[in-house]
């Protein structure tokens, strides 16, 4: 009898509690427990969130990251890890195409093989790579071609990344040029092909069986490309390409092969699926077209390697999950980068892009690195405000305020915005 009364009373109180909970401001996104979870998918509209809407999951050598797909592994880096110019290895995003990913590599048996049109084909051990060649280091951003694909309108199929399919690291390793000289590239070579240890269950000769990419031998980026065995001063996590991965500064990550084991000198351009069919973009100045033009079959496409990464910038703080207070300084912080060269200017707008003020730039770690920026804003008006950020690189490229569209979902670099709420302090 007593229990019954209590229950009824408590149910009533539960209602009141629910109301109180709902009227509290949202907790910061970075906290362990969200008050309300994001939806499990977005669309057909653009994904409005900074990251994709994937749940957190734990993988070997990684902090909890956003699991876009579990097999093959595709993990997005949560926004707050971009507060620093170098992305921690254990938070660095992961993108595989195929599901037979190495769990174990015996260095006493693993060899890097240079084969094909070389004077002398060679096999090098991990120790050879470390000892026989002069190490070089470069800070460079690794960004997936499809980073921010979930912004596209209309939406396109493929990995529905938010902005977190990118990271910056200090990469140390062997210059590709030194390896090519060591083996001696024979005349008639047009491309250098790379293949790693990852394999898929599909047929050998299709994209579902092997992942292979090639760079033109006369592409200037060959001079800057390295085979890295250190990432931020440590051996690469397995999921980022142990023992060595290709670092192709300024280019999208599709060329940055992981677990590189074969380097081949080709006398004919590579016709494999991942060069000839996938990762193709319209041959227009910004790689953009329209669904109609594409459907008509009139759009000529080229490999995404013909493009360097367009200039981008991101607001990392404030992230909109906590309110600002009128009269108190609010630090607007973030990162910027460009595949075309050094970021020379970052501008911040606190009125949705109507007026712009220069932000203070952080240290310069080289032209392919993230560059941090900071702008102190002292909001006076309570209510909703829209922040925006826009970067300019040394070649004069400025971020546009319009989004590109192409069927692959590549090359997004629209000006980023962040809505924030300012509380009155009265």
């Amino acid at each position, binding site marked *: 009898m007593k229990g019954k009364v*209590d229950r009824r009373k*408590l*149910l009533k*109180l*539960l209602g*009141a*509690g629910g109301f*109180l*909970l709902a009227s*509290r401001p949202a907790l910061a996104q970075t906290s362990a*427990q969200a008050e309300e*979870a994001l939806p*499990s*998918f*977005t*669309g*057909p509209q653009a994904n409005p969130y900074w990251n994709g809407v*994937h*749940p957190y*999951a*734990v*993988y*070997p050598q990684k902090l909890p990251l956003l*699991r*876009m*797909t*579990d*097999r*093959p*592994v595709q993990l997005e880096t949560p926004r707050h890890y971009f507060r620093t110019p170098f992305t921690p290895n254990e938070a660095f995003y992961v993108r595989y195409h*195929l*599901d037979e*990913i190495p*769990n*174990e*590599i*015996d*260095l*006493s*048996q693993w060899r890097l093989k240079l084969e094909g049109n070389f004077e002398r084909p060679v096999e090098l051990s991990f120790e050879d790579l470390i000892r026989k060649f002069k190490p070089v280091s470069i800070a460079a951003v690794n960004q997936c071609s499809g980073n921010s694909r*979930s912004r596209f309108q209309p*939406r396109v*199929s493929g*990995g*529905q990344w938010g902005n977190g399919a990118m990271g910056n690291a200090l990469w140390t390793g062997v210059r590709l040029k030194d390896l090519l000289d060591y083996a001696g590239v024979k005349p008639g070579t047009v491309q250098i092909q790379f293949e790693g240890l990852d394999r*898929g*269950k*599909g*047929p050998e000769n*299709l*994209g*579902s*069986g092997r992942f292979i990419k090639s760079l033109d031998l006369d592409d200037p980026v060959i001079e800057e490309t390295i085979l890295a065995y250190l990432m931020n001063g440590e*051996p690469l996590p*397995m*999921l980022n390409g*142990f*023992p060595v991965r290709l670092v192709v500064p300024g280019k999208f990550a599709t060329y940055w092969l992981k677990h590189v084991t074969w380097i081949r000198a080709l006398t004919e351009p590579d016709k494999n*699926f991942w060069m000839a*069919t996938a990762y193709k973009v319209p041959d227009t100045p910004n790689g953009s077209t329209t669904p109609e033009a594409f459907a008509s079959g009139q759009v000529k496409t080229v490999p995404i390697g013909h493009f360097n990464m367009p200039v981008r910038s991101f607001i990392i703080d404030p992230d909109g999950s906590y309110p600002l207070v009128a009269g108190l300084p609010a630090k607007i912080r973030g990162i910027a980068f460009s595949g075309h060269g050094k970021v020379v200017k970052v501008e911040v707008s606190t009125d949705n892009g109507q007026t712009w003020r220069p932000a203070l730039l952080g240290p310069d770690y080289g032209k392919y690195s993230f560059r941090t920026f900071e702008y102190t804003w002292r909001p006076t008006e309570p209510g909703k405000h829209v922040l925006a950020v826009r970067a300019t690189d040394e070649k004069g490229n400025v971020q546009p305020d319009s989004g590109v569209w192409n069927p692959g979902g590549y090359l997004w670099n629209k000006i980023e915005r962040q809505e924030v709420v300012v509380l009155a302090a009265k």
Partner: protein
Amino acid sequence: MKKRWLIVAGLTLLGGVLAEVPGVVAGNWAQGPLGLILQPAPATPGGGTVYKVGAYPLYTAELADGEGKELVMSYCSICHSVTYITMQPPLANWKPTMDKMLKTYGGEKFIPPDVAEKILAYLQAHYTPETRKE
């Protein structure tokens, strides 16, 4: 389960009522919806020259219930997990994706045409802008 909610409700009440300053709500608690994640034990280094990380965990998404679900779960998880399906935005037309899986990626080696038809019907029934629920 019910009992746990009652306790939560009780705590909620205490929090609300005991606050001494008007406008302040304190002491609310609710059951956390997230699982606990265990810390990894120190790595056991492989023998001498072996770099290893162990098995990769699967966190495969649950598909919507409906006719054809089992077919999708078996045939569409040969090359990748079905998380590739739930990861997509709702697609109005799944035919191009099916064609890509069957022809471009060679899925027809594993998936007979009549099964492919049933899979397409399932995807249209649960994963378009009109039909997608979760």
